[in-house]
């Protein structure tokens, strides 16, 4: 048995039955990384020594399995925008290339309390800005299904690592689709929780009203398990919501009888890859065969979501990235002629082109004379987009859409025109604007062998229904069991 192929739930059973040891599992995952990462390039930092030590500790706890914490001995990869104490965290940027955080993000504290092993930090688009992982300041990650293709972004490293069995699971972040898109391109499961469900404390901020941390996993049960660990109120994040966290695995197997699935016509547009549309429609047919009911709905402001996002997200980013000034941490330009010059040169040297572009856009739309026309206008359209969803969700329980208009494209295909890249997010972005939860699950492959996924969007804080519907779909198909040949 290749231990690196195990899901969290299978590994947990074997660990608690003492069939395998946590140290063997961690060693197997580390060996898998050594064997495959020269090709995939998902990892920025592999924490081999720390991980082995954590695994040894886990084996001690597993001597008494009934008292071992829920993720005891399970290796998890972490997107490099999530701060890990004592472990280099770069956010995919040169400006933080040598930054070693003095504290753990809340989600990391929760993983550690649950006994998880932090196996390493995975690659991402710089400051989580991107849809292909090509904006990483270090190197692009490749899609394990076809190494000439992108893994998606910005959590490309997280999705590629899980797809390549380089970790049983990973954490990513999603601001405009950055978990769901790479999950879809890499054929794994990825979820963006409701805004406020998971703490953002210790997560490098891109757009504070849109960012969320979420699980990237091999199947839906694992997604539920990982969400369970990281979700919940955190007083250190004032946007985290003080609502109880339900038992996400308890309702997984309840099926979809009577579940109303909204199908928005605005998400099945011309220009979509035909195989993507047919795979998603086939999934809907499967779900209705299992007892769900398809309900046509309208989300009239869909076409404005990308424009709204690229005003709001860039505005927030321009503010959030002002802190990278070379004073207290990160890169500082050498030999500057005064403080302002130091700021300007530090940021010029440390930021990549896409980050600069978004900072400039954001500064522009917030500047005097333009604020009303752009930022205020976008905030009003955001209200309308959110209202569209809340209205539609009165007539259905979940909404089903494709994740992306195409399967994974080739490296370099979309890097010359930023706008073309931005349009990869057309189906994922609205959920971030509306603050709603969304999950991507594999639902097919195209003729090139590239994964296709189904997206389900849900009511605020109703991750349980999303997981239940996704689980039903998954258990009646075998897409999620396929692995790339590496």
């Amino acid at each position, binding site marked *: 048995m290749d231990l690196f192929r195990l899901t969290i739930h299978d590994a947990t059973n074997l660990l608690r039955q003492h069939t395998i040891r946590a140290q063997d599992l961690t060693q197997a995952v580390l060996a898998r990384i050594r064997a495959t990462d020269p090709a995939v390039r998902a990892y920025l930092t592999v924490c081999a020594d720390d991980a082995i030590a954590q695994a040894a500790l886990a084996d001690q706890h597993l001597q008494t399995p009934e008292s071992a914490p829920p993720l005891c001995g399970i290796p998890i990869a972490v997107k490099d925008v999530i701060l890990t104490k004592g472990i280099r965290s770069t956010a995919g940027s040169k400006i933080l290339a040598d930054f070693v955080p*003095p504290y753990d993000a809340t989600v990391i504290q929760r993983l550690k309390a649950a006994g998880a092993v932090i196996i390493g930090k995975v690659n991402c688009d710089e400051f989580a800005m991107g849809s292909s992982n090509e904006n990483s300041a270090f190197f692009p990650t490749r899609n394990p299904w076809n190494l000439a293709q992108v893994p998606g972004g910005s959590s490309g490293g997280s999705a590629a690592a899980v797809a390549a069995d380089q970790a049983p699971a990973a954490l990513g972040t999603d601001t405009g689709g950055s978990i769901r898109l790479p999950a879809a391109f890499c054929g794994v499961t990825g979820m963006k929780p409701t805004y406020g469900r998971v703490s953002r404390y210790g997560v490098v901020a891109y757009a504070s009203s849109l960012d969320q941390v979420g699980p990237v996993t091999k199947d839906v049960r694992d997604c539920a398990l990982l969400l369970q660990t990281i979700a919940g109120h955190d007083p250190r994040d004032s946007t985290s919501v003080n609502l109880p966290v339900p038992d996400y695995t308890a309702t997984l197997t309840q099926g979809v009888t009577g579940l109303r699935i909204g199908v928005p016509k605005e998400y099945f547009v011309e220009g979509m890859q035909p195989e993507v549309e047919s795979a998603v429609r086939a999934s809907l047919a499967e779900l209705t065969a299992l007892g769900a009911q398809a309900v046509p709905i309208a989300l009239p402001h869909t076409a404005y979501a990308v424009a709204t996002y690229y005003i709001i997200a860039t505005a927030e980013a321009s503010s959030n990235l002002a802190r990278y000034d070379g004073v207290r941490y990160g890169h500082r330009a050498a030999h500057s002629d005064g403080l302002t010059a130091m700021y300007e040169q530090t940021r010029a040297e440390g930021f990549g082109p896409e980050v600069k572009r978004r900072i*400039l856009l954001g500064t522009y739309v917030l500047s005097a004379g333009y604020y009303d026309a752009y930022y205020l206008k976008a905030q009003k359209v955001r209200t309308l987009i959110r209202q569209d969803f809340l209205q539609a969700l009165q007539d259905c329980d979940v909404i089903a859409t494709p994740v992306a208009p195409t399967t994974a494209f080739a490296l370099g295909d979309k890097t010359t025109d930023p706008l073309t890249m931005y349009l990869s997010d057309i189906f994922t972005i609205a959920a971030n604007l509306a603050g709603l939860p969304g999950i991507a699950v594999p639902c097919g492959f195209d003729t090139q062998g590239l994964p296709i996924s189904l997206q389900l969007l849900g009511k605020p804080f109703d991750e349980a229904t999303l997981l239940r519907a996704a689980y039903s779909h998954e258990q009646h198909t075998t897409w999620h069991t396929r692995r790339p040949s590496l």
Partner: protein
Amino acid sequence: MPLVTIEEVQRVARLARLTLTAHEAEAMTEHVTKILTYVDTLNAVPTDTVEPITHAVSGPMPLRTDAVTNVPDPTLLRTAPATEATFFQVPKIIE
């Protein structure tokens, strides 16, 4: 269609404390113009009677007691490029 000049891009860059090379400024002007043209499509949406979203979560901002809770931690200086005693060192500000 908005006319974004290269001078305007340089002005905004200064506001954002970013130095752009001439080549970067040119490319940036082209990209920014294109993106702003795209986002101009929002003008087609009637929003006169619509309230802007100002908070992603509803409800009052939670407050805590106004008391000192953090302990001075010298390890926080370890991330700094330049320090002196318990200070972050920066280029001279006042001439």
